[in-house]
């Protein structure tokens, strides 16, 4: 599918876009990075004054985030509201201009592109939004919604073929191709999310950023959409960035998981490393707070209940941003920003990137009792 889609496109591209398009048409082998994000920063200025606007500060929504997305993998990003995960998605999509740092797609810097080069990148990185009720235009038919990307990128589907292409897409996402002339309000939430996914697939992208794709859906419908996303990934060799706050769903779908807190990645690793061997206190608290759908676990649960709320991203704490709610916090945490790196004192699955001066696995009842606390 990808091969078919990219070769004719590279040939038909026009003018200045040619080198860019050609670069993006390269195949990236599985397991190699397709998207590389380095020290990405997005600050929203806070201004004061009406006539003479001056900047008095900034909301540091994303503040130095680095990671790689590998071809064919699913990277889950979890975190609470306000941690910057949706802003991160927007910056990667170039819907927001990055304040600093770099985003490389297939080795090409894309965070400061414009014009036709930007258009070429956008074809390859698509997004599925959270709310299927507001992300579809109520005055457009399903056919127009899914076919709209072809207006902007006519090389993907020539005019005569578009109806067919849209019907194929409807079929791929499990909707009846005859629904092409219906309007969004005639569909349920789960079906609308399928329409959103079909639109995301229209341009045969290689990377899809899913921002809370199932959180607005009913429990019984969530599983259907998750299954669809997994099936499409296999079929079209897609790489997903899957942003969500539901930790059990993220675990199910992700190969690797990154945890964000107040604009920074605090821990990243394979699903096993994060869920079973978390070393950052915030990850541990987050995991322990998730209600477990098993009443038998009620008594045995060892929950860390954090005090207080997430501080304002306009004025984050010095040093480690989690220190105001952390039970391990020492003087050092206020002075020195912990780097996201694998702590040298940890071994095995605990050895993965964690931004904590005192990173250590959690002491639980069984087995870990004799292990000494590193803090």
């Amino acid at each position, binding site marked *: 599918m990808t091969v078919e889609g990219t070769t004719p496109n590279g040939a038909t591209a026009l003018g200045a876009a040619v080198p860019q398009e050609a670069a993006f048409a390269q195949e990236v082998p599985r397991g190699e990075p397709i998207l590389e994000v380095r020290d990405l920063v997005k600050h929203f200025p806070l201004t004061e004054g009406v006539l003479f606007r001056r900047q008095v500060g900034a909301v540091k929504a994303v503040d130095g985030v680095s990671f790689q997305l590998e071809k064919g993998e699913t990277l889950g990003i979890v975190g*609470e509201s306000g941690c910057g995960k949706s802003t991160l998605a927007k910056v990667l999509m170039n819907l927001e201009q990055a304040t600093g740092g770099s985003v490389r797609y297939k080795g090409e810097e894309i965070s400061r592109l414009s014009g036709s080069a930007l258009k070429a990148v956008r074809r390859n990185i698509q997004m599925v939004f959270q709310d299927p009720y507001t992300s579809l235009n109520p005055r457009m038919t399903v056919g127009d919604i899914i076919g709209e990307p072809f207006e902007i990128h006519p090389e993907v589907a020539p005019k005569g073929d578009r109806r067919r292409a849209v019907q194929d897409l409807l079929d791929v996402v499990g909707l009846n191709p005859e629904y092409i002339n219906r309007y969004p309000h005639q569909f349920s939430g*789960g079906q609308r999310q399928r329409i959103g996914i079909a639109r995301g697939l229209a341009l045969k992208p290689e990377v899809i950023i899913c921002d809370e794709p199932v959180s607005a859906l009913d429990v019984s419908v969530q599983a259907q959409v998750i299954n669809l996303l997994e099936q499409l990934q296999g079929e079209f060799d897609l790489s997903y960035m899957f942003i969500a706050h539901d930790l059990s769903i993220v*675990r199910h779908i992700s190969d690797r998981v990154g945890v964000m807190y107040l604009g920074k990645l605090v821990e990243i690793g394979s699903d096993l490393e994060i869920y079973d061997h978390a070393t950052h206190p915030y990850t541990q608290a987050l995991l322990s707070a*998730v*209600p477990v*759908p098993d009443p*038998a676990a009620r008594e045995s649960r060892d929950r860390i*209940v*954090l005090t207080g*709320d997430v501080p304002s991203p306009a004025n984050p704490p010095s040093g480690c941003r989690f220190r105001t709610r952390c039970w391990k916090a020492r003087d050092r945490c206020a002075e020195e920003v912990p780097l996201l790196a694998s702590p040298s004192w940890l071994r095995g699955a605990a050895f993965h990137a964690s931004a904590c001066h005192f990173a250590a696995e959690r002491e639980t009842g069984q087995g870990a009792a004799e292990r000494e606390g590193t803090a």
Partner: protein
Amino acid sequence: MSTAAEAAGREREAPYEGPLLDVRDLHVEFVTRDGVARAVNGVDYSVRAGETLAVLGESGSGKSVTAQAIMGILDTPPARIPRGEIRFRGRDMLKMGKDERRRIRGRRIAMIFQDALSALNPVLSVGFQLGEMFRAHQGASRAEARAKAVELMDRVRIPAAKQRVNDYPHQFSGGMRQRIMIAMALALEPDLIIADEPTTALDVTVQAQVMDLLAELQAEYHMGLILITHDLGVVADVADKIAVMYAGRIVETAPVHDLYARPAHPYTRGLLDSIPRLDQKGQELYAIKGLPPNLLRIPPGCAFNPRCPRAQAVCRGEVPELYPVAEDDGRPLEGRGSACFFWKETLHDR
């Protein structure tokens, strides 16, 4: 528990022996342009003092409408209650006059809403809104009401309550606002609290704080609690018993441990199976096929039959009642019921 209540110096009538709230065969429908939407079709449930009943269901299952009917805050029209009883301490509230009902609402039964930001008035300080309860129901003076508001904010552990009493809702975080909602519900020390998705809008770490607080206060005051939610995790954490709703009916009732261990209705079973489990990584998730029904056109027979893996001809022709669930040897399972013709088979499925 009663000692705590006495210590608080409250005057109480003698503890009521029967269920605090007893809903019987409740029907609620909405008259719309396209026809009559039957949101609640014969719901029965009851709650005793100190007990937590979780009402579990998806959007459109009628769980919130039932709660609004209990509170008496449904707009009529378009809503109407053609049949049913809502007994509070043995007396049917649907037959009470407006004034009598108002004396129960807020004072005896209080409600916590999902979205605290839209449930609070943005142009009044939280202290004023909390104090209003005392002024309206107890004729307290402004100064008294304010003092009580501070006390309440302290009780739900809002830091620096004295300084924050004059702040406005937008100045509080989501978790703090939900605490204010809880404080408001607790203000008049009601017998029963109905919490409609109290933590859905909150982040997980804050959700844990708020649920803990709610459970603690419930135990302290020995209140009945109806927790309306779609979250199987939250239910497992706090509920004593569960009523699962689908298309306006209760399809299964059970004590919390039984429901998770051995569901007796295919819908409950489907919900439990669709939770991602560790050992299923990389496999397809179990998904209930199809969509929740349109309330204007509820399928004939069992409303779940088009989505049910077990559906037979009888399911399409007859509406199953809530059958008592028993073991093979006929030993009844306490508190369990299933509205499925094949509850026995479902129960033994795993």
